[in-house]
Every structure is written in C-alpha cells, then in structure tokens.
C-alpha cells in the first residue's frame, strides 16, 4: 500500500509529512532503549513479511500487515513502518522521499488506531479476541485504503474515480488481512503471548 512519487499535490505531501513527523516523534519518545532492538527487528520482520504474496483467485496480493504491526508495537508502529517503507523505497523503488510522509501516515495511522480500538479486546474470551483480531486486520487495511483514496482525492478532485478504484481494489485485501491477522494473533497468543499488548508493558 503505497503511492508513487509525483502523484500527490504539495499540500497533501506536506500534511502527510506533518502527521508522520508527529507520529514518529511520539513513537520514538515512547521507545525506550530497552525496545530499540525489538522494534528494529520487528520492522525487519514486517518488511520481510510484506514480501510474501498470497493468492486470491488467479491473482496475488502482497501482505500489508499494518494491523498486526499496530497490535504488536503500538505507537512504535510509526518509526517501524517509516523504516520499513524507506527500505522498500531503496530496494524496490516503492515510493521515495517525498511520498514517505504520506505513505507512512497511510499505514501507521490505522495501525495505531487498531491498537487503541482492538488491543484491549485481545485479552477477552477467545471468541471476542478472535473477532477483534480479524476486525483489526480488516480495519487497518480499510482505513489505510480510505486514507490513500483521500490523499488522491485531496490532491486533485478529478482523481475521484482513480481513488475509488484504488479503495475498492483493497476490499479483497481487507478480508485476507483479516484472516491473516486473526490466525497470526492466535498463533502469538499461544506461542509467545508476551508479545501481545497488555501482557508486558504499555507501548
């Protein structure tokens, strides 16, 4: 989920940067030195995980996983996602410096939102926890897609159709990410619950 460079207008790029600077600032502030290695390593793991393509019908989509990132890292999702996106730009030229702010905001805002909305539910009954995990994966992609569409539309009102196609193209991804998040969180809950929020310290 990223917007290439050269698509968005100046004000939208600036707004994206402003959000990202604030988000990364909060994330870094909350990130004590005990968790730097952990956050760096998780950013690396998410970067690698996003290389995985999962099939949907005849096509493939690559995973976004911002829901999982949010649940595991809280506000540290901002610096972690910014880092992973910068690496994606360097390795694959997905985006560049000018779009880094907007792209980080598109993925990290929903991640943090997912953290606040759904993390508290993960410690409830298995059914509620599973529902929350699915909803988190689904919502994080949905919000991301809406932000992406919004960024396009605000750049130029004539991008409306492009924006709506971009958003609707993410609908199957939302469902897949819902399931992936559901199973992934279920896995972590069994195998290493201390990675999930509320088990250790706050974000």
């Amino acid at each position, binding site marked *: 989920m990223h917007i*290439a*460079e*050269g*698509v*968005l207008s*100046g004000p939208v*790029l600036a707004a994206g940067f402003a959000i990202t600077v604030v988000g990364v600032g909060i994330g*870094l502030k909350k*990130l004590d*030195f005990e968790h*730097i*290695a*952990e956050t*760096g*390593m998780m*950013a*690396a*793991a998410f*970067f*690698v*995980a996003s*290389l*995985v393509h*999962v*099939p*949907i019908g005849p096509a493939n989509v690559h*995973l976004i*996983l911002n829901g*999982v990132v949010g649940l595991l890292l809280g506000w540290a999702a901002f*610096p*972690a996602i*910014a*880092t*992973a996106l*910068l*690496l994606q*730009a*360097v*390795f*694959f*030229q*997905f985006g*560049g*410096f*000018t779009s880094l702010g907007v792209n980080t905001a598109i993925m990290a805002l929903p991640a943090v939102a997912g953290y606040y909305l759904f993390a508290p539910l993960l410690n409830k009954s298995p059914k509620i926890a599973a529902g929350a995990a699915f909803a988190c994966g689904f919502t994080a992609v949905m919000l991301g897609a809406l932000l992406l569409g919004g960024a396009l539309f605000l750049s130029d009102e*004539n991008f*409306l*159709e*492009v924006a709506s*196609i971009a958003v609707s193209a993410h609908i199957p991804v939302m469902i897949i990410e819902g*399931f*992936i998040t559901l*199973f*992934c969180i*279920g*896995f*972590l809950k069994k*195998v*290493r619950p201390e*990675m999930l929020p509320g088990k250790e310290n706050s974000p």
Partner: protein
Amino acid sequence: MLQETFISQKSLIQNLTPWTRTLAVIISSTVIALSNNLSVLLPALGTALLLVSVAGLDFRQVGRRLLVLSGFLLMIWLILPFTYQGQIVWRISFLSVSHEGLLAATRLTLKTCSMLLIFLTLISTMSTADLAHALHSLKIPAKLVLLLLITYRYIFLIEDELQTLLRAAKVRNFKPGTTLHCYRTYAYLLGMLFVRAAERAQRVHQAMLCRGFNGRFHSLREYHNRSLDYGFLALVSIIAVLMTLCEWKVITLPTLF
C-alpha cells in the same frame, strides 16, 4: 533472495558522498513534486535519463523497476483522460477525452518516472547503511537512524528464515491457493517469523547491554565532501532554481503544449 541490484555499480555517481546524493535527491524530488508545468517536467525526465546513463545502470534492470509503475500508470491513462473535467478534444461514442485529462496523465507519468529514476540512480546505488548515516548528518534523530541500521542489518537474515520456512512448507506439499488453509498456513509461518524475530531481538538487546549500550548512539561516519560534491550540488541547485522560476512563469521556455 533480497538483492541490492544497483549497489555495486562503479561510476561517477559512486564518487559522490552519500550525503551529497541524499541531499541532491531531496532537493530535486521536492522541486519535481511541486512542479506541474510540462516545460519543466520534460527537461526533468531528460535530466533523470541523463543521470541513469551517467550512472551506467543496466537499462534492463532499470526498465524492470519502471514496470513497477506500469499498473498504476495504466490505470491513470485508462481513467483520467475520460473523467477529468475540461475541454473535450475527442468523443468516442459515449466516452469523451478531455484536454486536461490527457495533460494530467502526461504530467503524472513524467513526474513519477523522473522521480523514480532519480531516486534509483542516486539512492538505490548506495547501501542503506550509508543512507542511514547520511540522513543522520541531515539531522534525522539518532534513534531512528539506529532503528534503520538494525532493521537493514537483519532483513537479510530474516528473509533467509522466511525462505527456509517456505521450503519446509513446500516439502510437505503445501500449495498456495485461495483457501482458508492457505491463509492459516501463511499466518502461522509469519507468526513464527515474528516469534523468532522477537527472540533474536532479546538476544541482540542483551548483546548491546554487554557492550555498554545506554541508549545513546554515535555515528562514526563523517562525510568529506570534495569539490566534485559541491559542484554536483551546485548544479542540482541551479537546475532546481531554474525549474522553480519556470514553474512560476518568471521565465518561460518554449512550451510544447
């Protein structure tokens, strides 16, 4: 396999310090991002192509990277000319193509392509470690730089682990498909990747403690810019200023449209 395709290129570009290259990309891509005038964007693409050839990059590899944009650009060209409000130039049955739509699609194509090429030529040809230190000397917070360095260090290792797990799945006859079983398998596989990452992070943190880490990070790199660097930055700045003046119609070049 994760590869840094353009990193080992030897050329004039490699003689510039990472600091120079990073700053040059920040300046030039900001100017291009804010430009809309075709008489600015066409020369921009020309300059970008010139850079690519100076850098001596493999054109096939570069083309492959441009293909990344093709899906998006195709969508732009299939939609924008028909939906953009403006003066109609063609009418094909119920579809009408607007002059502004064509212009917008052209503009977008020029911008994305030239920006991708500039980034590719100046940034993707250096190691991310160099980029991290360059960003540090451009006042990016040390904590973020340290994060970037650690992440870069371990992506190769984790990618290796991913490939091994995927092989293990393959050996047990796993075949991806649009099924819940497939999604569950991928989710568990990734979960395992995260668990291993977290366990390694714990050991890495311990290793950092053993070496006296207390949260402060000191970058060792210093960039000794030479006249080549200043010359290059001066050139980039002059072009940037000319483009900006042109964009604001302070000066005009012969327009093509």
